[in-house]
């Protein structure tokens, strides 16, 4: 037989090709098996299902031990797409009360990788969240008809009282940002939103546990890994005792019906917030369960901004409630003493400038000035301080001293309350004015309105209430906070430490006396409560957007203050119209648990009067 030896050499080409491929595969195997730990981890995470055991969330009680927020079970309908067989969709929809269109939409959303990036037909997917217990019961009975579906128990919040939504907060599902910020969270977890739920989330949420299960490719559980030896038990969240008095909160909210504004009451000795009302508010139960999304949208679109906590986030001109701070600064700086008098000719008239005032005796010293809320007195004091170059060198330097005193009293910066979204208000500094008017081109008269809490000054109702508490304590305060106790641990140290403003405490006694006089024979006579010595200060804040805001701050009893309060009613007119009655009713309710018969008319008036707010208010 003829043999072509040239062609026979080609066996080397073919065998060589094979050997090269085998070598490449060998190198690839080396790379996969010996060079890369990633695959080992992937195999483990495939095979071991770390099933999350959700802890029960901490409960919330009010200061008197009333249960306010508790847990209720909810049920998510889950499915593993691979295991789902054709089923009676109509029956399914009727069982859990949804329309076939909604079901189709849910299926489409579940499969849409943009909406649900973790979609896989092999792993459990959440189809419908938060079934009611009734729907759950019905579905549970029929579940055998829907292969591939199962139900996962979750925890929802429930509220005993339709009150304090702004303080309590609610639960929402975590979003991508939460997951990136805190690795504790996994998609589908809940987290606190707003209020204490949000700020005390780490205490309330507890610690998730894990059950390690062996899982096959279809997500079917094949058993516990090594009999559960590596499982971690869930740790329940800590219960929280709020400093709120839920009855007082409800009462104050009822007084604020039909008005926009805020009521803040603080126990001066502890800094504990007794009530923190923003109006209008909403029933916290609106943000529970499946209707949450829809209701949240409704609240967001409401132009009265019910989700906006005016008590912490609203920055308002403090008006005359600011005057005590001025008195304190002037006394501390030696601009005045308690007997210094200033004239008031129906106002402060200086350098072609006139700040109006109402009729009262003139000239007058500090305490009567507080009693009658004399604008001129504080304008004079302010002028004498800011323009005293002999002492401070320049108006700008004097203004910085003035400003620093206010900062120490809690103005201009967030107080640090244990609730989210606190506004810092606004306190201008010298630089602000130098930029606006030019260096050295401004003096006390240029900015005189800040002396009476107008102009650039903005404060939150919480800051005003805190001033009231500081005066009640005669010179110190504790950062206001809404949580009194946390189970098995202590509240953060900042809520137990006294803070001392840069004003000597004896000056506070004089201011307190002035505020007491305002109740006994001044602007807040209506604040007087039979049998209780009340001190108070009205505020009527001018407002470029409409009618004046009505404000009040006060504390009682005068000698041993148990409650300090601030009230702010948007466009409520004079402070005495809404601020004084509401503030004094809140104090009376808290101190005596009732309203004196002589003041019932005032309560009825407050409960039934609404302030008219023009629709489409030109709020900025």
């Amino acid at each position, binding site marked *: 037989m003829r043999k072509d030896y040239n*062609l026979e050499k080609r066996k080397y080409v073919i065998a060589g090709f094979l050997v090269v491929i085998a070598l490449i595969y060998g190198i*690839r195997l080396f790379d996969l*098996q010996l060079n890369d730990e990633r*695959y080992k981890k992937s195999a483990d995470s495939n095979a071991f299902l770390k099933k999350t055991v959700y802890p029960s969330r901490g409960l919330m009680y009010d200061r008197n031990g009333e249960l306010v927020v508790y847990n209720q079970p909810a049920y998510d309908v889950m499915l593993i797409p691979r295991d789902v067989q054709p089923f009676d969709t109509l029956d399914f929809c009727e069982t859990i009360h949804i329309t076939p269109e909604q079901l189709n939409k849910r299926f489409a959303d579940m499969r849409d990788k943009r909406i649900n990036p973790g979609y896989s037909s*092999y792993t459990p997917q959440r189809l419908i969240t938060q079934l009611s217990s009734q729907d759950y019961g019905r579905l549970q009975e029929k579940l055998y008809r829907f292969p591939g579906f199962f139900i996962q128990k979750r925890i929802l919040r429930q509220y005993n009282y339709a009150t304090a939504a702004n303080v309590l907060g609610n639960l929402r599902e975590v979003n991508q940002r939460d997951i990136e910020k805190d690795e504790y969270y996994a998609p589908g977890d809940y987290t606190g939103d707003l209020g204490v739920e949000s700020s005390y989330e780490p205490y309330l949420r507890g610690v998730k546990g894990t059950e390690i299960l062996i899982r096959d490719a279809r997500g079917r559980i094949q058993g516990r890994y090594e009999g559960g030896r590596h499982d971690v038990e869930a740790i329940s969240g800590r219960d929280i005792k709020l400093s709120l008095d839920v009855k007082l909160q409800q009462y104050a909210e009822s007084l604020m019906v039909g008005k926009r504004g805020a009521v803040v009451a603080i126990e001066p000795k502890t800094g504990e917030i007794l009530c923190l009302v923003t109006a209008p508010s909403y029933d916290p139960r609106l943000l529970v369960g499946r209707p949450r999304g829809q209701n949240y949208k409704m609240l967001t679109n409401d132009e009265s901004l019910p989700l906006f906590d005016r008590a912490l986030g609203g920055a308002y001109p403090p008006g005359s409630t600011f005057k005590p701070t001025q008195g304190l600064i002037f006394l501390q700086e030696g601009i005045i003493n308690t007997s210094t008098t200033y004239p008031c000719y129906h106002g402060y008239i200086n350098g072609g400038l006139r700040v109006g005032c109402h009729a009262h005796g003139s000239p007058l010293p500090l305490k009567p000035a507080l009693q009658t809320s004399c604008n001129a007195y504080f304008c004079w004091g302010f002028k004498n301080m800011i323009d005293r170059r002999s002492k401070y060198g320049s108006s700008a330097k004097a203004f910085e001293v003035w400003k620093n005193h206010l900062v120490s009293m809690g103005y201009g910066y967030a107080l640090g309350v244990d609730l989210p979204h606190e506004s810092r208000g606004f306190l201008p500094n010298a630089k602000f004015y130098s930029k606006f008017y030019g260096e050295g081109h401004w003096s006390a008269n240029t900015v005189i309105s800040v002396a009476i809490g107008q102009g650039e000054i903005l404060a939150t109702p919480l800051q005003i209430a805190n001033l009231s508490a500081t005066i009640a304590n005669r010179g110190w305060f504790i950062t206001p906070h809404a949580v009194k106790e946390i189970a098995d641990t202590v509240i953060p140290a900042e809520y137990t430490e006294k803070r001392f403003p840069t004003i000597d405490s004896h000056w506070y006694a004089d201011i307190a006396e002035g505020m007491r006089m305002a109740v006994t024979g001044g602007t807040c006579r209506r604040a007087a409560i039979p049998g209780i010595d009340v001190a108070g200060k009205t505020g009527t804040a001018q407002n470029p957007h409409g009618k004046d805001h009505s404000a009040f701050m006060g504390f009682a009893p005068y000698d041993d203050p148990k409650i300090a309060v601030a009230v702010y009613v948007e466009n409520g007119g004079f402070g005495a119209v809404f601020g004084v009655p509401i503030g004094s009713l809140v104090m009376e309710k808290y101190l005596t648990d009732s309203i004196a018969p002589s003041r019932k008319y005032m309560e009825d008036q407050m409960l039934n009067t609404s302030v008219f707010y023009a629709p489409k208010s030109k709020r900025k």
Partner: protein
Amino acid sequence: MLPNQNESSPSVFRYVDWTTVVIYLLMVIAGVVSIYAASYDFDEASMFSFDEFSGKQIRWIGLGLLLGFFILLIDWRVFDTYAYPIYIGMLLLLIVTPFLAHDIKGSRSWLTVGPMSLQPAEFAKFATALALAKLFSGYNFTLNAKAINYVKALAIIILPIVFILLQNETGSALAYLALFFVLYREGMSGLILFAALFAVVIFVVAVKFTDIMFLGIPSGEFAIMVMVMLIMIGMTFIYYRTLETPRNLLFWFGGTLILGWLLAGPCGIALPGMGWMIGSVCVGCVYLCIEALKRHRKALFIPVATALLSIGFMFSVNFAFQKLQPHQQLRILVVLGIEEDLRGAGYNVNQSKIAIGSGGLTGKGFLNGTQTKLKYVPEQHTDFIFCTIGEEEGFLGAIVVIGLYLALIIKVIAIAERQPRPFGRVYAYCVASYFIFHFCINIGMVIGLCPVIGIPLPFFSYGGSSLWGFTILLFILLRIDAARKAYA
């Protein structure tokens, strides 16, 4: 001095290549063990239970050995004599199969014979090999003698491909393309294999590197153009054996590339990049044509044709790629690492890579693989059996299996080359070609280097058709080989 021609005498077993038989036995035993591991369930099942895949496979192996034994008893000349009838019979079977078969996952390739389901496509392998061997063993047949010989050989290869494609079994059909190795061994120009390889390279590079731009054209296409230039220079050298012409080409291509880079880069002139490159190649082509005519060197037209065909192919790749089925496109893109679709088309490959990768050096141990035990890899007892070995027996086990294949195929090539007759040699090369194809594609897809083409790993994957098909293929070879002394 006539050798004993009584083929029924037991002496045939003296000449059987026992090494190959031992490799074969090692493979099927390792296969059945792997199948047991791959299909092992948590409720302790027996390896030998006929309800299990492993038990069924043992039955297939037993019957397969019996089949092999009978093949060894047949006179080898039966295969020679009846090669065409067997081939034609098998073609007829392939033609009727789609009409008789039930639809299983879109493919109509399974015939039910009593209790068994068989895939004629697997059995057509040996028939095609016999027919090809028969063709080449014709009196004084040389492939390159006449063009008609190519037509005949191609017809034998392509007919089964067409009929198997009609059954929607793309993977099985592609295996027949491996027979081009046989044509190469029998004299087909290496240029064709080279062209096929280069076509694959062009395809991969053109489809894969489309993002980064270079000289205003995708970097993949740029790289192909540079490759074309280098190949032109290399071919000119090989076919002309002078330094001058290739050197001129080198300077020309290098010069235009550098000039283009300078103009586009530092000077910031936006060139029509593709036009520039093609222009450069075309000038090179014209130069080679002039040289070819002037010096009477027709061979110089080869680099010209190569360059023009390559560029034409490159342009048609994107067009052709769009014509593929979406799931095929996706599989290709996933393998090329362009698409990352771990839950969809890439799921199998990714899970199989995880299974193999988690095996480490020595593996997790028999029956301890979590990936395979828990059914993360679909088709793990059939097409993806190799990942069970990779996971449970580790790198060492996987290398042993690759080594077994290398030994088997090289052994088959050695057998081929010792055949006194073209019939035996061509048949043996057909066997080697099938094994090379299945080995390369199956293991390649399991470790994520090739597209997922559903073909089994011979002797390892679960399935009677594949096992019997390859057993028949191998034992006919052993029978023919055992008779090599007949005319020696």
